[in-house]
């Protein structure tokens, strides 16, 4: 079977991303390396959200919680002098999965608006918990002493090396999500999304499938959180702010819900647009200073008029 056009576009995008570090070094513009690394980290988080939102039909308005847990796992271990990356990242993934299991066990039973609200409420709880723990900086957050250390194997302090680690994880997660969605598990998950009554009638209960997807998604997002705090070198409860959850949702929608390439396209479009509106010198000052106003208008227009997102512009099947 020949790969679909979207697979080509995605492969092309990843190759393009792989070519960025030498290009940035050649142009002497390290800023782009930083910007695109951020884009890819958010693309990982958005990919994890897409698994439950796009394929599972679960509108989680609290996905920033796992970004926060992953970030706190790295930050708190670092605070006690444990900088070993293998340990830090495993704890980030494990803790996120555990919290997702607890949150999911309660919220996956509800649906519709109640699911949206209950996931939001749990994230708010964690957000306020982060704010009130003075030991780890509370409201102000705290600086990380060092990036995660992989005992000489990879040095994350080297911007290009860190960049390629993020790229590799992104590519791996995109591949794994694709495989997962095409598996029996993924088919069941999608069947439950499109018609729950029919799914029950043919003999399976959607709950365990949904809960499992919720936990996998949380664990993936936890790793994105660990990467994000390594990227910013600063730990703050703002990682769990509810607007962050909204941004993640928007990336998924903008890129194309339930498509493999969508989260990457959406994360790139949103973050580059933000950067453009904030800093592009050709734009009048009235725009750069109040860029959120224009971003807000663009958001509304996209939702109202571009139903299938950016991936919808490329020919291919929609789930």
């Amino acid at each position, binding site marked *: 079977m020949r790969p679909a056009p979207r697979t080509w576009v995605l492969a092309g995008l990843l190759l393009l991303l792989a070519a960025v570090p030498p290009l940035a070094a050649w142009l002497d513009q390290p800023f782009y390396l930083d910007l695109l690394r951020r884009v890819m980290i958010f693309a990982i988080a958005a990919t994890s959200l897409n698994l439950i*939102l796009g394929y599972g039909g679960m*509108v989680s*308005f609290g996905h920033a919680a796992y970004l926060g847990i992953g970030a706190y796992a790295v930050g708190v271990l670092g605070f006690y002098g444990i900088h070993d990356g293998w340990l830090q990242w495993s704890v980030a993934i494990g803790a996120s999965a555990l919290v997702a299991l607890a949150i999911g066990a*309660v919220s996956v*039973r*509800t649906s*519709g*608006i*109640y699911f*949206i*609200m*209950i996931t*939001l*409420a*749990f994230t*708010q*709880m964690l957000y*306020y*918990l982060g*704010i*009130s*723990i*003075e030991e780890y900086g509370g409201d102000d957050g705290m600086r990380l002493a060092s990036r995660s250390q992989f005992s000489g194997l990879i040095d994350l302090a080297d911007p290009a090396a860190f960049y390629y680690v993020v790229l590799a994880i992104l590519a791996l997660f995109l591949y794994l999500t694709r495989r997962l969605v095409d598996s029996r598990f993924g088919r069941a998950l999608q069947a439950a999304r499109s018609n729950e009554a029919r799914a029950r009638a043919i003999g399976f209960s959607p709950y365990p499938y949904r809960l499992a997807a919720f936990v996998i998604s949380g664990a993936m997002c936890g790793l994105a959180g660990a990467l994000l705090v390594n990227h910013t070198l600063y730990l703050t409860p703002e990682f769990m702010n*509810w*607007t962050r959850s*909204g941004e993640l*949702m*928007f990336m998924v*929608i903008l890129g194309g*819900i339930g498509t493999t390439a969508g989260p990457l396209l959406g994360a790139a479009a949103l973050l580059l647009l933000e950067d453009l509106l904030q800093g592009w010198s050709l734009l009048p000052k009235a725009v750069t200073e*109040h*860029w*959120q*106003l224009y*971003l*807000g*208008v*663009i*958001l*509304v227009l996209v*939702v*109202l008029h571009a139903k299938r997102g950016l991936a919808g512009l490329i020919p291919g099947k929609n789930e």
Partner: protein
Amino acid sequence: MNLILIAEQTLNGLQLGVTLFLIAAGLTLVFGIMNLVNLAHGALYMVGAYLGTFFFQQTGSWPLAVALALAGSMLVGVVTEVVALRTLYERDHLDQVLATFGLILFFNELVAMLWGRAAIFSTIPEYLSGHVQIAGGLSYPLYRLVIIGIGLAVALLLWWVVARTRLGMLIRAGASNRPMVAALGVNIRLLYTVVFGFGAALAGLAGLLVGPVYSVQPGMGELILIQVFVVIVIGGIGSIRGAFAGALIVGMVDTLGRAFLKPTLATVLSPTAADAAGPALASMLIYLLMAVVLAFRPAGLFRAVR
């Protein structure tokens, strides 16, 4: 813990409760009737606070400022409904959440453009400042009592409108069966706009009342909006009675939790542990409450009749 402190905090809780109710009433109606999740409802609260402050500075008359700010909030609400939200009614919740999230960014920046990013100073009229002596050495700010009074009066008025008038009958009918109401020849679009406008005015009223108590700044709407969501989810989405009960419960739990949880914990735990756990638990309390309510009554305490 003495009685005066408890009474004072209870009044504070009541004041937060009625404020939450004013915002929640519009939000729950909009959800119940139009099936719209409106995250931008907090922005209308912010608009009310800014307009109230602005008009009071300009005119010097508080009642006039209140009237102008109410009309202004209603106008902003109606324009938003007609321009942006109308097309969203038939969409799924996901699109609604995102589009109204965009509106939040828009309104916050618009306000920042007009009045700046810093909090603006909002005053209360001379004759409403000062304290009132309530029985037994408890003196309480008059302005906060006024807020409680206005809030309870509006709640009563709202009950009367919904339960006793033709408009209220249409609202209830619209909430239970939209196509049927439209088939009976009611202009449902107009009804939506009217309901949204009144909801906006109520949120604006809340904003202009509490502006001088809290702080008037861009983003103030989102801080309270999430609490309001907790209120309507606890009360049962679409039910005004539920919104009232939910608002008072959340207002009380939040205020009393913040005031008394730490000293209460200190009697059981060590002082340092209470210091650490008290504030954290207090700010998580209403979300815990919501999770518990949803676990036992998945449709809230007062389920709207559908």
